[in-house]
């Protein structure tokens, strides 16, 4: 079976600085894969490379067996990969409802249509309502996204990301800055919404990571030093030294 995501020998330099060095990563279909690593390790940069936000200096990225490195973000998105952002990245002046609906439009085939009334597209309405319900924001549907609380914006960020129905979902620190209760809620939300999909998640909260992930990759200085099941990662001496060691004391 081809992997959902396959990153092969990817390098990324900003100027002279090599941020990502010989990155290799495989994520199987249907797998929940966590990427962990210290601050500045290159986790978000890895997301940017896979989602087409930036182009690799060398190496290639495959989505379901097709090379996608070099494609534009929207082309990659149309092939079924959707990502969220570490720093909330929504449509601030539009309502919560509009935010989610915009994310539904391409996938429901309405694209750039200027001859259809957006309010009278039943499948768009139903799907938007369903997602608002899923992310518990139905009661906030008419509020401009910019006026939501931080936790609500993070939930909307997830909603926009999954709205297109992408089969590969990448979430960059979805619970960052959330309280314990909010984190628990967000995790069960993520678990439910990515049922049957491939999930790649960057997360600092180890209880979330070990509770959610089928496999974990550890990224240090732009290089994956270990990749395996949570058990394997827990036991890996390199990981202990480079990353978990810090947590231990």
């Amino acid at each position, binding site marked *: 079976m081809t992997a959902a995501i396959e990153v092969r020998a990817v390098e990324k330099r900003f100027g002279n600085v090599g941020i990502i060095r010989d990155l290799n990563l495989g994520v199987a279909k249907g797998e929940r894969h966590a990427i962990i690593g210290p601050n500045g390790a290159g986790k978000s940069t890895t997301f940017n490379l896979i*989602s*087409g*936000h930036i182009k690799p200096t060398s190496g290639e990225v495959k989505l379901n067996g097709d090379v996608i490195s070099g494609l*534009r*973000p*929207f082309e990659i*998105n*149309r092939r079924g990969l*959707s*990502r969220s*952002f570490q720093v909330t*990245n*929504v*449509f*601030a*002046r*539009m309502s919560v409802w*509009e935010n989610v*609906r*915009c*994310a539904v*439009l*391409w*996938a429901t085939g*309405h*694209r*750039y*249509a*200027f*001859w*259809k*009334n*957006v*309010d009278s*597209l039943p499948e768009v309405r139903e799907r938007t309502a369903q997602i608002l319900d899923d992310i518990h924001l139905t*009661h*906030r*549907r*008419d*509020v401009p996204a910019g006026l939501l*609380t931080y936790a609500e914006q993070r939930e909307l960020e997830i909603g*926009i*990301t999954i*709205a*297109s129905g992408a089969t590969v979902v990448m979430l960059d620190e979805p619970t960052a800055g959330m309280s314990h209760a909010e984190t628990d809620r967000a995790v069960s939300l993520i678990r439910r919404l990515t049922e049957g999909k491939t999930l790649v998640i960057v997360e600092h909260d180890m209880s979330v990571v070990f509770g959610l992930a089928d496999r974990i990759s550890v990224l240090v200085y732009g290089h994956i030093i270990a990749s395996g099941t949570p058990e394997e990662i827990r036991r890996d001496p390199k990981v202990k030294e480079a990353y978990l060691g810090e947590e231990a004391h």
Partner: protein
Amino acid sequence: MTTATRSTSKATATPAGGGVRFYGVWLLGIAVLIVLPLIFSSGGSLTSFSLIGIAIVFALSYNILLGQTGLLSFGHAVHYGLGGFAACHMMNAVVSHGWPIPLPFIPLFGGIGGLVFAMIIGWVMTKRAGTVFAMISLGIGELVASSSLILRSMFGGEAGITTDRTALPKMLGWSFGPQLQVYYLIAFWLVLSAIAMYALTRTPLGRISNAVRDNPERVQFIGYDPHVVRYLAFCFAGFFAGVAGGLAAINFEIANSAYLGAIQSGLVLFSTFIGGTAYFFGPMLGAILVTYLQLGLTNVTSVWQLYFGIIFIGIVMFSPGGIAGLLMMHRPLVRAGTLWTVIPSYLVAIVPTVALACGVILTIETVARYSGGDPINLFGISFNAKSPVTWIAAAVLLVGGAFVARLAWRRIADAWDRAATVARDRGYLA
């Protein structure tokens, strides 16, 4: 959190009768357009209404770019002007070939003129938004304006291209000689264009245009190419600007290089911004106000541009949402029934604000006419620009007005805060 919860459930509940009210507003607008020339039937009024109608179509088309898609253009008059020229050439061609095309169809060709040019230059122009787009639009504007003086066969040089609207085939017995008939033609196209442009905002493209305005980066990650969205919006804006230009060509029976110059481009930006870009009806208000000021002020004062500048700066600084933004600010207060608590402080503020405005006007006029020496006549009162009495009056009004007005405005702000707090507590977003 509980307040917020309550607020939205109420807010969603309100538009139950929204459909009726929505169509009511449009029907009311149409009724006003029909009745207006019957009430104000002087030649001057008809001319003003016609110009306002054209200005509204033009400003609405500009807002497809500025308000809907977040594109700041300094050269939108290019499409207006080319639409005007296209309409003139079409009218002349209809007459000389004897084609059976009556005048009411001519604005469509104006629109096509604006659209074709937008389609040609738009792809390169809309590659980037922001400053890059603004600068290119400025460049294209200058380029086309100067070409219009060079390419004589197409643009008629300084004189422009003239035409005779009455020479076209009649429709329903209308010759379109009288201004009243021209007014109704403009009103018809105004309604048609306004409905079409409003409908555009309710389509998938219209919604995604807003998303591109808010966050072009994120749009790429929900499947859309912001470049394509901007290009399509640009083409629609070009089309409707061309319609407005076509209407102007019919109204004036001429198209010349002034149509597509920087002044015209500045004026539409100005109207749209003053009216308010965040609401569909904002540019309509702006177009009405600016056209009226333009028609009124040019007769009264030689420095009317200065007043435009002051109004513009005032709006940018104190009400970036424009007139529409100011009006819509009151909606939650009206809904919550707390507007009446603000009204008294508004009334109190009127006198010092008017005094301040008079001070500003008197100062400007004194300075402007000091060298000229002709007497100033303000609201029927005569002043001598060289007399110290005038200077003192101006200074007193200016300084005193500003001082008292500041106090009055602070009072408004306080009253406003209290009213808004109550409105929020009663569950309306304010």
